[in-house]
């Protein structure tokens, strides 16, 4: 027996071992195609589901964050004690944000109507206000056009309650502030259910020309996570030491709360699904390997060492894991892209960092699946398996 084993080892040393090894793996995949294919499909689907969920898990937070921008400003920069903000404040805010958010300047005065009623008039930049306050329901935005033939009526946006208070708002409206008059031409109305409904909005340039006052407030919607918003808040405080910079806690805290809850639910669900997929692969593969205990017994009977058998089954499983994970990854990306389009109406940013996770995870699961049957088969005598016990 010892002699035979030694001679067979010596014999095997002559034939190219790697090619035999590869051939065995290849034949294992080709013969019993059905079982191998079902194991491959299981790995592939599990990898696809995991890829889709992990990609979405990362993507959804960013996408959801973007939805919160519709709540409008989450940071307010206001002049201290009713003064105006420094003239370069908008420029500083703009350079700090670098496009990661929106902002709009506002200046406020209390003006009088001809009948002596008080009304808040706000000067702003309509284009910026439109971008910042997407929840405003505006019938028609005023168009800011240079006045070619003075005197021109100033285009204005009327709050719905202000509009109701002046039933003749359809044409024009005359207002006075500290004895100075302005002629407004109503372009449209704004409805929010808030303080805006009682105001009149005019272009900031006309506002300054009329009242002699500059902007007193900049409303900022800083996008990003709570931590990023806090960073923006800090740098704004440093950049504008004379102004009061404060977060709109209602919005910032609400966003953090909803995002973290929704994110945790997504994560918990994703983990559940990934776990189920992994278990599915595990059970399929274990069944497949148990099924091949005869191959195992024959190999062992004709003198294969335990190490060779171990590496044969482990390499085979790892190859299956790889072969299933790669198409699964691509399939999963496709599914995630489709979900992203269906749910968020925007394209998905594929994350390469998910690839090692999915491939690594698949190989680990397939190796785990191989380890259990192999260790059990080791304890069995080949003769017993061959006899069908």
């Amino acid at each position, binding site marked *: 027996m010892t002699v035979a084993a030694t001679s067979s080892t010596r014999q095997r040393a002559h034939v190219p071992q790697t090619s035999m090894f590869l051939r065995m793996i290849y034949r294992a995949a080709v013969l019993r195609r059905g079982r191998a294919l*079902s194991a491959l499909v*299981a790995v592939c*689907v599990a990898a696809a*589901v995991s890829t889709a*969920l992990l990609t979405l898990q990362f993507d959804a937070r960013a996408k*959801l964050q973007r*939805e919160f921008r*519709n*709540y*409008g400003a989450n940071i*307010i920069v*206001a002049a201290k004690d009713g003064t105006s903000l420094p003239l370069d404040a908008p420029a500083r805010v703009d350079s700090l944000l670098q496009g990661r958010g929106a902002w709009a300047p506002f200046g*406020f005065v*209390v003006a009088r109507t001809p009948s002596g*009623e*008080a*009304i*808040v008039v706000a000067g702003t930049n309509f284009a910026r206000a439109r971008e910042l*306050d997407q*929840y405003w329901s505006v019938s028609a935005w005023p168009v800011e056009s240079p006045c070619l033939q003075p005197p021109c009526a100033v285009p204005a946006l009327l709050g719905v*309650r*202000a509009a109701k*208070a002046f039933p003749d708002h359809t044409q024009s409206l005359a207002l006075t502030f500290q004895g100075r008059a302005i002629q407004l031409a109503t372009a449209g109305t704004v409805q*929010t*259910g*808030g*303080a805006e*409904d*009682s*105001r009149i909005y005019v272009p900031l340039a006309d506002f300054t020309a009329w009242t002699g006052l500059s902007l*007193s*407030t900049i409303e900022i919607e800083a996008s990003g996570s709570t931590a990023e918003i806090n960073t923006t808040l800090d740098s704004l405080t440093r950049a504008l030491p004379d102004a009061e910079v404060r977060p*709109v*806690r*209602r919005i910032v*805290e*609400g966003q953090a*709360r*909803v995002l973290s*809850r*929704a994110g945790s*639910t*997504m994560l*918990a*669900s994703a983990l*559940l*699904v990934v776990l*189920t*997929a992994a*278990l*599915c692969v595990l*059970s*399929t593969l274990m*069944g497949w390997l*148990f*099924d091949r205990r*005869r191959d195992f017994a024959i190999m062992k009977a004709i003198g294969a060492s335990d190490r060779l058998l171990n590496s044969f089954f482990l390499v085979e499983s790892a190859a299956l894991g790889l072969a299933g994970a790669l198409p699964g990854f691509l399939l999963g990306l496709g599914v995630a892209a489709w979900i992203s389009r*269906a*749910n968020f109406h925007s394209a998905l940013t594929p994350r390469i960092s998910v690839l090692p996770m999915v491939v690594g995870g698949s190989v680990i699961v397939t190796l785990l699946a191989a380890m259990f049957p192999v260790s059990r088969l080791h304890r069995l005598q080949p003769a017993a398996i061959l006899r*069908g016990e």
Partner: protein
Amino acid sequence: MFARLVYESFRRQKRRKLLAGSAIALGVTVATAMIAVATGIGDKINRELRSFGSNIVITPQEDSLDLDVGGVSIKPPSDGAFLRESDLPLIKSIFWHHNILGFAPMLPASATIETIQGPQAVAVLGTYFAHPYSYGKETLITGVRTTHPWWRVEGAWPEDGGHDLLAGEKLAARLNIKPGDTVTLAGTAHRVSGILSTGSAEDDELVAPIALAQELLGRPGAVRRVFVSALTKPEDAFARVDPKTLQGAVYDRWYCSPYAQSIAYQLQQAVPNSHAEPIRQVSQNEGVILARVEGLLLLVTIAALLASALTVSAAMANTMFERRAEVGLMKALGAANASVASLLFAETALLCTLASLVGFVLGTVLAHEIGSRIFGSHISVQPVVLPVVLLLAGVVTVAGSAAAIRRAVQMDPVFALRGAA
């Protein structure tokens, strides 16, 4: 004999049955939990979205314009019209009263406060903190602690019926007020029970029980506006139509949908001389976020169902495959294909039902756990999920085992017994 075969099969193949059973149970657990989470998430996120504040405001119908700059009202507090505090419980009389999570009346007033530098004018805001009120037989608690969850108090919240009040943090810093201090407001001493931080205009004000503000204003029972926090359905095109243009069944459908608009409309009808309106900043966006989260969870649930179905059918295929020899023996003894197949299907069905029930219970526990871990409130599994899950598990199990059963039954017993399949 048939029953005995099934019974013996379960008795003698405990390990194998346990393995297949646990695969089915696991699949059903995940499916149940995910269906529960996906159906419950809307309600949960809707409640979380209430942390953005009230979504409906009720104002007097004939109110003068607000003079509000930077959140600070410069309108004289006595100007304009008021609502009656005694009408407020009517908020709970509307069709969607279960959706009203809370409301907080507001009454701005002003008073002079004695400081070291002499008397100073301060704004005083009267409101409910956690005020009990009753409508019909119900006694409920409402106030800013429900509707304004971002308000933080260092110290203690005052009693609604008492004389204590809160000082906004900026005002407190300026006048050097600490929790427990006494301030003299309009000649009367009041204890400051806590320092309030809100991030808006209230930081510069005193916030008091509404009765105190009414007294300062000299208008007993008056309320300036009421903020209502309601669970609403996401806004769609139908929500935005003017109810006056609707008739008959269409009007009823609009009225009986919990849109912010229709709840506001009902509140306006319920509270005399009032005007109610959705606060667009809050109500508009809820729908979008809710729809996104729900949509996402729905798709994840589909993925979960798919993964569970695969697990179950893979396990079943394995189980059937392992029983070729048994099938061969039965066939060699003269069993007809149909009887062998019906035996295997009966076993499968029994196993599936038992395992699904276990899985359903585990899934309920899991959903409960997810709910309490993440949202601090439990997610309940609707009873209707049970038949759905049972049916799904049945279909998947049968589908998973059908091909394997067919193969096992059609195989020549000789090959099966020789183990050469």
